[in-house]
């Protein structure tokens, strides 16, 4: 379907004409190239670093840890150094930096550096970390521990008809943005300019201000960014630090450009998780209580693990109303590459675990999975695990009902079960399973998911995002914000919101380059917050611009103009917005965000409104498994999203399609293992992301249920589509094999061993 022209993206044509410059497309005179020499071991003591005398070191610039006064990347815990000094804590950790005028010299120089390591014991397993003798972070290797309690879990246990327990796990996931990480640092007299592919320019600025101890003015500019998904949230602070160190020392602009292999091997991944969950249920499958234990593997340094954990814990009861809850969540340190932000930010792990627990409840009580879900869905007026009463914009039931109907779930569930029976029987008997060449095992699975929009807890009130809108000489409103376009459509959304508020053409609105010297800190582009939080500031700013222009006009003319859909009108005269705005060029409005006061959260006791509002989704996946090769594919994918209000309907659909496919990748394609502590992937050949040949037929629907404090009712969207995809796909595998799949991803070889187990059981 073609989009409404109002929904066309403002950045599309520039990209289609190759006029948009990503960082590697910039022509920077005298650009040098930098690289890091990295630890090959997951944990070791650096005994010495030697530079081969036979190499002419005058041709290159070298930086080691000793030269860095404030050798830590300012983030939540400041525990991660720019370069390891004594101990390396993960394979791939940077130890020495080198820069040279060309890549050939750079490579040669790298070969002439020798780092001597003394290997040390290490811990890779997140469940062993807490009690390990290997100390990575504090005494117990715990970055954060969260306890949430509601009601009285003992009471739920006593009243339970059944106690259902499930352990589940999820693996690493690589973002695989199409544009690998890339940052350039340009040194000036007492300033350093950072330009690159990034989500959060002010995070980088904060880290570098700290690194330079305020001795340099740091300007951060975002270049066009080729996808991020969280992967360019925290990591670029480290990379920009490297580029800046080399640039300042060498006096040349220095690029840190990763090739794909380096990118997948040393950049952050989605946190692996382990859940041990207990549900207390009555005989109908109603959940009386949930006792949940969550582990997230944070890797060697904290990065954002504490807040990822918070989102995981706060999402752990899923879309369900549960009277009695006990949650114990821990983010632990291991000797692996630090885990970092990734679309969903702890939510997908939590939703996978709870959705599989629901499958297990259905399995135990002999109910259909949709029945257990429906019975427990949370409704307006009910409360979450933190006691947050959901007062508005609650659509767990509506999205669920809609997607079940549209996908014809119940009928297909029964039909497919029947159709699978003879194929499964042959398979488990060890007979060739296909009678007809196109015999496939067909499954249908479902999930319900939610995503809290904006920062967790008091985050927004701490960040206090700020924007400015200024009228330029041409009478055009110019938006100043630090939100970044990384493909999600931020530029289009922000322009659309202000245009709609002012009732003028979107073409009349300008957006300033994201440059920390020019734009205020409106907060990072994360947490599905841009549209909802920054968008709401733009609506306020737009309204104030109208009222100020009206006042000025009236006091100047002595008349009483009113603003109507883009025009000032006083009964006799009608003047366009632009004409009036041009007269008052220079007028500007600043707005700063804080939550509506009705939203309150106590982040010490974990009580109250963890998020101002949630977005809701339900999904149904139709999955096919080849009974001979065990190849898994998703044939059709239905999803219904409720996001308050779609600011850009077409691009909201686009987000949902893209996020869903990424979630399907998480379920059945994307696997990262560890080999000697190193990720065992090198790029697209051994880390498979879905291609167009793998995509299902997508059927997306958006429901509206406005959020009273969002711009035109909008809530957050970017992450939600990802969250429910994997559980829906895996739910379909439960249905086919009547077997508990509790580990992400599920690969053909896993099905093979499940079938072997089932055969043995049958025999």
């Amino acid at each position: 379907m073609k989009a409404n022209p109002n929904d066309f993206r403002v950045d599309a044509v520039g990209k289609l004409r190759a006029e948009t410059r990503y960082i590697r497309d910039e022509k920077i005179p005298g650009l040098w190239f930098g690289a890091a020499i990295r630890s090959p071991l997951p944990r070791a003591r650096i005994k010495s670093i030697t530079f081969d005398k036979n190499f002419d070191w005058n041709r290159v610039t070298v930086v080691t840890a000793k030269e860095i006064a404030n050798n830590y990347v300012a983030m939540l815990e400041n525990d991660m150094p720019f370069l390891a000094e004594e101990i390396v804590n993960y394979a791939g950790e940077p130890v020495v930096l080198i820069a040279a005028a060309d890549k050939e010299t750079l490579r040669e120089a790298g070969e002439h550096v020798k780092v001597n390591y003394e290997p040390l014991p290490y811990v890779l397993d997140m469940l062993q970390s807490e009690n390990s003798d290997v100390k990575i972070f504090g005494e117990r290797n715990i970055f954060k521990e969260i306890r949430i309690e509601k009601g009285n879990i003992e009471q739920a246990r006593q009243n339970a008809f059944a106690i259902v327990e499930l352990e589940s796990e999820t693996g690493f996931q690589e973002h695989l943005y199409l544009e690998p990480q890339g940052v350039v640092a340009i040194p000036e007299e007492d300033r350093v300019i950072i330009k690159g592919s990034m989500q959060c320019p002010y995070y980088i600025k904060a880290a570098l201000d700290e690194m330079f101890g305020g001795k340099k003015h740091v300007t951060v500019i975002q270049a066009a960014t080729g996808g991020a998904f969280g992967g360019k949230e925290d990591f670029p602070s480290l990379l920009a630090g490297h580029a800046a160190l080399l640039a300042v020392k060498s006096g040349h602009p220095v690029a840190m450009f990763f090739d794909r292999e380096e990118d997948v091997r040393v950049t952050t991944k989605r946190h692996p998780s382990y859940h041990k969950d207990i549900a207390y249920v009555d005989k109908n499958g109603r959940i009386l209580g949930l006792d949940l234990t969550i582990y997230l593997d944070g890797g060697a340094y904290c990065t954002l693990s504490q807040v990822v954990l918070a989102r995981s814990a706060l999402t752990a009861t899923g879309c369900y109303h549960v009277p009695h809850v006990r949650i114990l969540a821990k983010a632990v340190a291991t000797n692996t590459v630090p885990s970092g932000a990734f679309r969903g930010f702890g939510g997908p792990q939590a939703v996978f675990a709870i959705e599989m627990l629901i499958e297990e409840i259905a399995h135990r009580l002999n109910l259909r999975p949709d029945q257990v879900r429906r019975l427990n869905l949370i409704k307006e007026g009910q409360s979450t695990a933190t006691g947050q009463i959901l007062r508005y914009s609650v659509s767990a039931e509506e999205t669920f009902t809609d997607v079940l109907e549209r996908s014809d779930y119940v009928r297909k569930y029964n039909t497919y079960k029947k159709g699978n029976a003879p194929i499964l029987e042959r398979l488990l008997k060890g007979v060739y399973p296909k009678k007809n060449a196109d015999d496939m095992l067909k499954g249908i699975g479902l999930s319900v998911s939610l995503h809290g929009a904006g920062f967790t807890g008091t985050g927004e009130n701490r960040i206090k995002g700020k924007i400015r809108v200024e009228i330029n000489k041409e009478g055009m409103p110019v938006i100043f914000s630090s939100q970044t376009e990384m493909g999600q459509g931020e530029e289009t959304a922000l322009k659309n919101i202000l245009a709609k508020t002012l009732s003028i053409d979107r073409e009349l609105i300008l957006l300033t380059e994201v440059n920390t010297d020019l734009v205020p800190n409106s907060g990072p582009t994360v947490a599905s917050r841009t549209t909802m939080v920054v968008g709401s500031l733009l609506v306020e700013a737009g309204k104030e611009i109208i009222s100020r222009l009206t006042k000025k006009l009236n006091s100047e003319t002595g008349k009483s103009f009113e603003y109507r859909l883009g025009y000032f009108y006083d009964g006799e005269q009608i003047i366009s917005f632009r004409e009036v705005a041009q007269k008052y060029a220079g007028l500007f409005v600043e707005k700063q965000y804080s939550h509506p006061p009705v939203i309150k959260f106590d982040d010490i006791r974990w009580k109250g409104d963890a998020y101002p509002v949630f977005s809701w989704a339900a999904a149904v996946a139709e999955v096919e498994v080849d009974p001979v090769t065990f190849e898994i594919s998703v044939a059709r994918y239905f999803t219904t999203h409720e996001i308050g209000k779609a600011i850009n309907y077409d691009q909201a659909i686009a987000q949902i399609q893209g996020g869903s496919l990424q979630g399907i990748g998480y379920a059945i394609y994307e696997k990262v293992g560890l080999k000697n502590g190193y990720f065992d992937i090198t790029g697209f050949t051994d880390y498979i992301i879905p291609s167009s040949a793998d995509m299902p037929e997508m059927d997306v629907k958006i429901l509206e249920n406005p959020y009273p404090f969002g711009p035109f009712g909008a809530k957050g969207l970017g992450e939600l589509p990802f969250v429910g995809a994997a559980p829906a796909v895996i739910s379909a595998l439960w249905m086919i094999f009547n077997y508990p799949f509790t580990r992400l991803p599920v690969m053909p070889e896993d099905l093979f061993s499940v079938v072997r187990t089932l055969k043995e059981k049958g025999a």
Partner: protein
Amino acid sequence: MRISFIVNGKSVELDVSPKKRLLDILHDDLDLISVKEGCGKGECGACAVIFNGERVNSCLIPAFQTDGSEVITLEGLKELPGYAAIERAYVEHGAVQCGFCLSGFVVSTVAFLKEKKSPADEEEIKEKLAGNLCRCTGYTKIIEAVKDLSLQEDLRRQPEAEVSHYVKK
């Protein structure tokens, strides 16, 4: 080494290191920035160009093979009259997100259309574009755009087809 070849209809002569790939020559030396490096290993399609009439991944073509060749990149394609229709389809179908994969997709779209005698169905498009990876869109909108384009006869293979007029085979 010295190479001479035709890029977007113009002859170019250049001294290049034999270590360079066609991708580097186009992107770094000729500033044809539509040619993107997503993997450098022939896996993602972001560096796709039309090389002697065929769609290839330019990261796999060593410098010596470029001598005497004819190359068309997005910068060349966009000068063709038929390009407006392609651009419009991608815009109207909302098929653009981060854009890093995009020139590869457009090159593949052109290569695909010039082979088509009749409108394409979705399955066929999915197969033919499977060499181009996109992490943002989920492909649906790209497929819709290409399907729409394949309905336009003048874009499909005919001697006078505008888009294929550069593309000799």
